[in-house]
């Protein structure tokens, strides 16, 4: 499991078996319920135990804004940090031509259907700043253009509080070319 090495796994197993058998039972039930009960939201592909996730079924969200992200963890990150009030679409990955991951694997037909129905005015592309994320962003921007939806991509560059001297060359050059006019 990610983040749990052999030593940690062993400590957890001994702890549960020696000191907290009830906890182990509860954990196994929670995991079993999660595996059986959690699927994907029919609208945005976020993980949820219902047909539509909490965000898609909430009133007061702005359905004109749609933010495309790579993973459910990215939805949580944007929700926690930005105060964004639009909706999401979770791709569950990024385009990776060398691994055979194309538009169908990323649910693009479902996303295109949402862009086509005319309700969305802006598609905010929040894929990761990797080459694969860039390829995905280009494709999403093309798709948005095809349905006359404005596409924007989140900015990337120097971290807040960072010092240029210590920022790696790739990030700095990206930030430099993505500079914008100061109002």
């Amino acid at each position: 499991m990610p983040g749990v090495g052999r030593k940690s796994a062993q400590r957890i197993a001994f702890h549960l078996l020696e000191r907290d058998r009830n906890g182990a039972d509860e954990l196994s039930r929670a995991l079993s319920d999660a595996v059986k009960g959690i699927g994907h939201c029919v609208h945005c592909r976020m993980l949820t135990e219902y047909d539509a996730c909490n965000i898609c079924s909430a009133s007061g969200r702005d359905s004109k804004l749609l933010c495309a992200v790579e993973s459910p963890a990215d939805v949580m990150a944007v929700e926690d940090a930005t105060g964004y009030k639009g909706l999401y679409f979770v791709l569950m990955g990024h385009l990776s031509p060398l691994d055979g991951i194309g538009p169908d694997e990323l649910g693009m037909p479902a996303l295109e259907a949402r862009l086509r129905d005319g309700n969305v005015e802006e598609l905010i592309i929040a894929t990761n700043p990797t080459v694969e994320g860039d390829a995905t962003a280009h494709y999403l921007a093309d798709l948005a253009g095809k349905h006359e939806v404005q596409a924007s991509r989140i900015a990337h560059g120097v971290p807040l509080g960072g010092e240029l001297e210590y920022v790696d060359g790739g990030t700095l050059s990206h930030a430099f070319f993505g500079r914008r006019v100061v109002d």
Partner: protein
Amino acid sequence: MTARRVQNQPAWLLHHRPFRDTSRILDVLSRDYGRLSLVARGSRSAKSKLKGVLRPFMPLQLSWVIRGDLGTLTGAEMDGGPISLNGDSLLSAFYLNELLLNLLHRHDPQPEIFSAYHATIIELNGQHSVATALRRFEMELLRLLGYALNLDHDTESGDELDPGRIYEYRVERGPVPANNPDGPLVFTGAELIAVAREDFSDASTLRDANRLLRHVIAWHLNGKELKSRKVLKELRRGAATADTGPVIQ
């Protein structure tokens, strides 16, 4: 086996995949040591300074230590300015990488292929035709691998190609006279001669080169389908990008 230490070697990252929690395994094309795999320890961790550097389609200088087949990356820097591929150029560059991953042997130095790849990425970064750049690279790659296309003589008689005649291109031999004008690899002599000149400003020559190279490369891949080709086809079907010609069919 003694460890070999390599410092500041010009290289390109062809592919990468996650390894354990915070590391990656890199498939790299280096100038003097050919294609090889390196573990980049910690390169996916939150604090790693390598994340902005270890990107495909970025000229790099890599350092590593290797004992056996898999090396360990010890340093990475950008080698020159950044290259920013977009749209079709970016997607086609993935195809180049898959081609190299499938056709190059590991630890077989190919500095000329390294240079040809470098030149093609630079070309894709410019305003040139993507399809032309790809066809030239494919022809150069085949030549450097020792599988050069025969586009100047009839392999049965040894005579020069007759522009008015019909030939069937047999991958393992070259052009042989044909009677039937239909078939996936049937060309006129004039068409083959035009492909040999690599003057792809004529759209029909570009189409012929694409048809010929697609079959020849498929033959050298022993029928293995390239994943990037499949994905690119799906992408081109879905996106609104204007069809600028047969980049990859």
